[in-house]
């Protein structure tokens, strides 16, 4: 039996903001056992066999959607998938109507990605099902932060006391906010780095360091989490050109080799090779990008298992 908490303090997973340190530790610890499970010859356990989960994606996704679906299937849950682009949403149905219709088909849990911040919180107030936020606009992406923390812990043994720099488009990134909150709750130090236009003005109030020079930031950190430039969310030009951005903030092998220590390189995906990170760095042994994806399934299994195990 573990010393940590036995159950989550929340009915939903809407954001890292609502979790306490014990919740996060419980999720990471449970993910350990699921990582064992997905490396067995038979990768499936029957825990969630009487649970139906709807994956509702109002925004595109590859990794998160596949990862959630695999996690659900390996827990033996029944899964229905819904993509907004091919649905009645385009005919004018509201979010609550859409979800309530899905729920009347007896769905226990909803995994939702939505372009609007707070969509998950909104939904949790209006419908009677457990909600897992799979990304809401530029707000939070809790499972990504949990799997990043898990991957750091797996690689470095501990999250507490480690220095993590988040580089790039912090302004439009839900990964950044969730990561900052999660890593701080686990006792890590966090720095953000990027051009002034892509760093939110008041980010300092979260207790993170701000640095505009990539080399200085990399020399400070143990782990660098490189974010993608989210061109689809940028309505105006935040920097002159991608080429200039990549010269100032792109991570390449030359910079990596010039550092006096071996840092760990992470990326939440999808990667724009040659922009925020070059191919030789992304594929180097310092990069744990694919480990992050593998751990994503285990962490999501843990989240779904812990939420579903709350008495119906």
């Amino acid at each position, binding site marked *: 039996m573990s010393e940590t908490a036995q159950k989550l303090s929340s009915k939903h997973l809407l954001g890292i903001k609502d979790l306490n340190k014990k919740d996060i530790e419980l999720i990471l610890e*449970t993910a350990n056992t699921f990582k064992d499970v997905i490396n067995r010859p038979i990768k499936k356990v029957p*825990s969630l066999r009487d649970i139906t989960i709807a994956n509702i994606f109002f925004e595109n996704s590859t990794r998160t959607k596949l990862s959630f679906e695999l996690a659900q299937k390996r827990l033996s849950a029944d899964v229905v998938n819904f993509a907004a682009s091919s649905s009645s949403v385009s005919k004018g149905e509201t979010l609550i109507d859409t979800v309530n219709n899905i729920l009347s088909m007896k769905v226990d849990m909803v995994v939702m990605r939505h372009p609007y911040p707070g969509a998950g919180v909104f939904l949790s107030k209006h419908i009677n099902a457990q909600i897992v936020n799979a990304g809401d606009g530029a707000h939070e992406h809790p499972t990504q932060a949990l799997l990043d923390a898990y991957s750091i812990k797996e690689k470095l043994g501990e999250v507490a006391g480690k220095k993590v720099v988040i580089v790039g488009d912090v302004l439009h990134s839900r990964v950044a906010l969730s990561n900052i909150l999660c890593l701080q709750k686990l006792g890590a130090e966090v720095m953000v780095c990027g051009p002034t236009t892509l760093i939110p003005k008041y980010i300092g109030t979260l207790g993170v360091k701000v640095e505009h020079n990539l080399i200085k930031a990399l020399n400070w950190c143990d782990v660098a989490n490189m974010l993608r430039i989210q061109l689809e969310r940028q309505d105006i030009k935040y920097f002159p050109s991608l080429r200039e951005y990549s010269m100032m903030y792109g991570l390449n092998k030359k910079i990596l080799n010039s550092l006096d220590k071996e840092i760990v390189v992470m990326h939440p995906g999808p990667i724009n090779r040659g922009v925020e990170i070059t191919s030789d760095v992304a594929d180097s042994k310092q990069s744990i990008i694919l480990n992050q994806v593998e751990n994503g399934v285990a962490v999501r299994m843990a989240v779904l298992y812990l939420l579903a195990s709350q*008495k119906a």
Partner: protein
Amino acid sequence: MQNLTLLSGKKFQITLERLCHQLIENHNDFSNSVILGIQPRGIYLSQRISDELKNILPSAKIQNGILDITFYRDDFRRGDNPLVPNSTQIDFIIEGKKVVLIDDVLWTGRTIRAAMDAMLAFGRPEKVELLVLVDRRYSRQLPIEPDYIGIKVDSISSQKVVVSWKEADKEDKVVLVSEN
């Protein structure tokens, strides 16, 4: 609260040795057999049995694994607290092997049902047997019976059988706890 000690000290040790000799009768040198302790409390017994077997058969290689059954239980979402998983460690192949499942107390039989399901994720054994230290008779809810029994206990459902181990609880003993 009333505690009745059913087994302790030398008698406890003799019981373990007797179980080992019974195992050897059916499994010879354990070349085609493995033992699996069920988490969380069966692992102490399986470790003890495995140590004892090594004493009796110094040349034999005893393969001892631990099996967590949490994800296979049938009471998921039915209790107030979520079921917290433990680790599973099976570093060998059970396909075609004779498997001895080991747990401390056999009561309703539901744990063993779950253990059989959990075990099948690691292959198809030739044969599965069950060894328990304590058999609480006449309380089964499933058609499951042990092959090797340390002691048999007649108890009612409000009573508890508590097994303590030197490694974890400082003392080897089996106690019947009655609340009144």
